């Protein structure tokens, strides 16, 4: 019986070659992209699945009275929390401090370095490849490597017990190697060392106080813990210990599981967008199959009736259809698997790899995705096999045997609703793509408050081996730049727009006690001139005036507003820590977008630092005469290249750095573009199949009409107008949804475009053009056919 079914299915598929290949094409592309999207979502949610009891792991988040929030706290807090409570099973800091150069034999390398408590591996049950997580960090001079680092340095060899030296002074014993960590993990680990090591460093000790927030805290709590009570206890500790408790609104316990989306907010959009896109694409593919199946059903009413007369049951008819669709669906899944592995996954890695790391597919690890694909295939098969059949199978045999289809006319409504739904989704995606495009264009071309054109940015944070000689050579280079007629101005600084560190500090005005939390960075006297940032009041830094005065401050307009100042005449700021020096405010600069346009301009303070202090600066920027960028870049590269350093010198243009901020959103745009194209393409495939089928059914009608004198144009209009109307209705449904969704999304940007009517008009027009083209091809073909031939066909 089954063999018979399969045989007939194959013959049927072959007989309807056009429909079958349209279905195969649509399904393969559709399922291929769904697989890709689902795989990335799966990889994302599964990245930290080897960490047990995640629901009991929390991290601390600081909420300020100013409405800010950040995941750091002062260093001593964690110890006090552990001391004051019984609910904590294990707790650890995670903090970067320095990324020291590590040496093993001849190898010199630097990795992401995190300093943690020995309990780290009790909080996070990351599996070890070598070594024992229980004791790995018990000793002060120990180091745990990630698999990646271990492979790089030692290959497949087990390195536990080997010695790595730090800065030629410390010797650390390797006590463990972690199993590979997914690139989508919340952790970006390289090497892990005990926090105890930091406590020997004077600069760390100086900041391990109750006012500097720089460390992240993770706690594993007993499942029975009353979180609200526990939070209250933490906040009591804040009250009694913090040197500035009034600025803290609350410390909150946040679930570890939400940390990733908390740190990169776009991730949330990408993940929910991927899920929504998968569902929509699936829906469109499903509708195509249903519609195309339903249309062939007209042919089959008679067939079904004959089978029923000969003793066939409903079940056998349904099985027949399921097998026929199953063959199609699983053939498509095989093709889509090739698409996924060969094209789509590498493409996805191109788009998001830089931010999230590249993911790869292995059967052993990702078999649930395969199971998902098979399950999905079965589900689709059943739905498209059973649903249309049910309508036709209940047609009485006596009606069916005559091939009468009047009984099924109501189906048009269902089918038309399906088409409308498909095109609504397609138009929705086109709208989203257009609006997303406009927003990105807006952010990239907005007036940033500084001039980003013709500025070369050199990264001079290179770990110089000898700072004194480096400084001298650097000075020589700066003198050359000074003399270069093509260099208009230049500057040396710790930050550059698009790359301001998350360095916050708390200042207050000793006259009024007004406080601000502000970002700060040190710059030289050339910064504002090089970037053409206007000075609102006061003066710029001056080498001679500020040389011995390390504390001169220029604040931005937002900071001045936050302090409630009208002028800066005689104003100074003080830090919150005891014994803080005065910071005389010498100038106010205009607000400029030092972060991306997603964020509003926050208070900013620049402190002076002389430019030849090369080791404490990160960037050299030079405004150059247009057309002379290359020669200046070469000059700088040669100058820096002569200095002995551990890292390679790199330079780029400020314009690229600024656009780079939108890489992730642009990645999203690329995905949305692909999905939009895909949805409209697959929808059109379905429509093409339908209309060619309908035209076939109407061959006689068209013939008669032509005999009676209808022209080609009239026939084309006859065949197309319904579909164009349906697309129109779809547009009317899609527009308000697109408006609502994108308005909500744009609200997340501090600076955003307003949605304009033409964006909708454009997307409607695109959909309409593509549809007209699709429908038109078939309509012209039918309309120009010879009527005598078509009349014979029936």
């Amino acid at each position, binding site marked *: *019986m089954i063999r*018979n079914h399969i*045989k*007939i299915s194959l*013959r*049927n598929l072959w*007989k309807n070659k056009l429909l079958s290949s349209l279905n195969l094409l649509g399904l393969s592309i559709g399922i291929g992209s769904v697989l890709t999207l689902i795989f990335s979502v799966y990889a994302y949610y599964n990245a930290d699945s080897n960490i047990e009891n995640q629901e009991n792991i929390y991290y601390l988040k600081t909420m300020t009275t100013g409405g800010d929030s950040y995941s750091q706290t002062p260093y001593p807090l964690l110890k006090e929390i552990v001391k004051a409570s019984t609910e904590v099973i294990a707790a650890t800091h995670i903090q970067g401090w320095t990324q020291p150069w590590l040496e093993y034999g001849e190898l010199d390398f630097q990795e992401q370095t995190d300093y943690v408590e020995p309990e780290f591996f009790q909080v996070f049950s990351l599996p070890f490849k070598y070594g024992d997580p229980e004791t790995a960090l018990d000793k002060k001079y120990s180091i745990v490597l990630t698999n990646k680092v271990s492979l790089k340095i030692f290959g497949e060899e087990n390195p536990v017990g080997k010695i790595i030296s730090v800065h030629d002074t410390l010797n650390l014993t390797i006590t463990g190697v972690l199993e590979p960590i997914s690139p989508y993990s919340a952790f970006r680990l390289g090497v892990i060392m005990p926090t105890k090591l930091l406590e020997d460093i004077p600069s760390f000790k100086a900041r391990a106080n109750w006012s500097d927030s720089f460390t992240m805290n993770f706690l594993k709590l007993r499942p029975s813990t009353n979180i609200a009570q526990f939070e209250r206890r933490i906040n009591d500790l804040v009250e009694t210990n913090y040197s500035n408790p009034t600025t803290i609104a609350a410390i909150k316990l946040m679930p570890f599981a939400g940390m990733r989306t908390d740190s990169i907010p776009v991730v949330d959009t990408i993940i929910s967008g991927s899920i929504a896109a998968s569902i929509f694409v699936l829906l469109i593919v499903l509708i195509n199959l249903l519609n195309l199946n339903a249309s062939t059903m007209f042919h089959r009413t*008679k*067939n079904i*009736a*004959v*089978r*029923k*007369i*000969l*003793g*066939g*049951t409903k079940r*056998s008819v349904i099985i027949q259809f399921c097998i026929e669709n199953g063959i199609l669906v699983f053939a498509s899944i095989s093709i889509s698997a090739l698409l996924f592995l060969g094209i789509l996954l590498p493409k996805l890695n191109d788009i998001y790899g830089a931010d999230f790391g590249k993911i790869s597919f292995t059967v052993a690890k990702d078999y649930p995705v395969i199971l998902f694909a098979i399950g999905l295939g079965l589900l689709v098969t059943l739905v498209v096999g059973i649903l249309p059949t049910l309508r036709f199978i209940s047609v*009485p*045999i*006596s009606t069916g*045997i005559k091939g009468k289809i009047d009984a099924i006319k109501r189906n048009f409504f269902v089918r038309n609703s399906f088409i409308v739904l498909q095109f609504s989704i397609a138009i929705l995606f086109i709208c989203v793509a257009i609006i997303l495009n406009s927003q990105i264009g807006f952010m990239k071309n907005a007036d940033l408050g500084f001039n980003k054109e013709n500025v070369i940015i050199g990264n001079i944070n290179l770990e110089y081996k000898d700072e004194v000689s480096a400084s001298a050579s650097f000075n020589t280079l700066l003198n050359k730049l000074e003399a270069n007629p093509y260099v208009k101005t230049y500057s040396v600084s710790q930050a550059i727009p698009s790359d301001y560190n998350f360095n916050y500090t708390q200042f207050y005005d000793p006259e009024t006690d007004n406080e601000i939390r502000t970002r700060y960075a040190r710059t030289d006297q050339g910064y504002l001139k090089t970037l053409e940032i206007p000075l609102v009041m006061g003066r710029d830094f001056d080498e001679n005036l500020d040389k011995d005065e390390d504390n001169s401050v220029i604040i931005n307009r937002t900071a001045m507003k936050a302090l409630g100042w009208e002028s800066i005449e005689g104003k100074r700021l003080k830090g919150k820590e005891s014994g803080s020096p005065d910071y005389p405010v010498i100038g106010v600069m205009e607000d400029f977008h030092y972060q991306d346009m997603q964020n509003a301009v926050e208070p900013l303070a620049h402190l002076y630092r002389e430019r030849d202090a090369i080791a404490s600066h990160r960037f050299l920027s030079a405004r150059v005469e247009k057309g002379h960028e290359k020669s200046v870049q070469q000059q700088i590269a040669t100058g820096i290249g002569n200095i002995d350093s551990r890292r390679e010198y790199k330079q780029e243009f400020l314009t690229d750095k600024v656009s780079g901020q939108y890489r992730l959103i642009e990645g999203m745009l690329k995905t949305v573009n692909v999905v939009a194209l895909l949805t409209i393409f697959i929808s059109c495939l379905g429509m093409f199949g339908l209309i060619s089928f309908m035209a076939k059914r109407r061959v006689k009608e068209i013939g008669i009409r032509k005999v009676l004198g209808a022209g080609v144009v009239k026939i084309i209009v006859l065949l197309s107008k319904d579909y164009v109307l349906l697309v129109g209705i779809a547009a009317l449904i899609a527009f308000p949804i697109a408006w609502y969704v994108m308005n909500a999304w744009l609200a997340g940007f501090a600076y955003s475009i307003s949605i304009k009517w033409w964006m909708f008009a454009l997307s409607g027009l695109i959909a309409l053009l593509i549809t007209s083209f699709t429908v038109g091809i078939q309509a012209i073909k039918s309309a120009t056919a010879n009527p005598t031939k078509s009349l014979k066909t029936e």
Partner: protein
Amino acid sequence: MIKIKDLEKYYATEDVKTIALNKLSFEVKEGEFVAVMGPSGCGKSTLLNILGLLDDPDGGSFLFNGTEVAGYNERKRANLRKHNLGFVFQSFNLIDELTVFENVELPLIYTGVKPAERKQRVEEVLEKMGIMHRRKHFPQQLSGGQQQRVAVARAVVNHPKLILADEPTGNLDSSNGNDVMDLLTELNSAGTTIIMVTHSEHDAKYSHRIIRMLDGQKVTENILSEFTH
């Protein structure tokens, strides 16, 4: 074998109720060959559908081999159908995707006959119908006469007690039509009961008895040859 009494069937559209069968009664004995004639719309096809258990009457009684089947549900009807009835249609109604062999085999698959036996029985009947050499062809590749032979082969492969033929020669030229009528007569001589709806007086002459219908009722009955049981 068949006894219908006061059989009624209506077709209702939104505002018109058409009476297709109006208290129709007659009897068909086992082994009889009966032709049903009448103008278009007189209810012939409706009658055949009900006799073939493809449709339900709205009133009256229908005894099949002494059992009342008028109220049977679809499953019971299907079961009765596949074991007792064979159908021959004007438009052949072969399944395009199946070869001649597979078309004829289909009823045997549905009644659960084992493959080896199926092969033997199908070949037997194809041989008998003279279309064995065409067994691997698809219906579209055959002439009308050949297609109807396949249809007849399919109708008889399960050894039905009753064959219902709906204008079996309607789509055939006279020579092919005669061949098919000879086939039916042959089957009837071998004991199969046949009820045939036809427009053709010529074809009707092959039967024992002609029932003439008008407006859902039996008008006359001509006995052509004495049927002896």
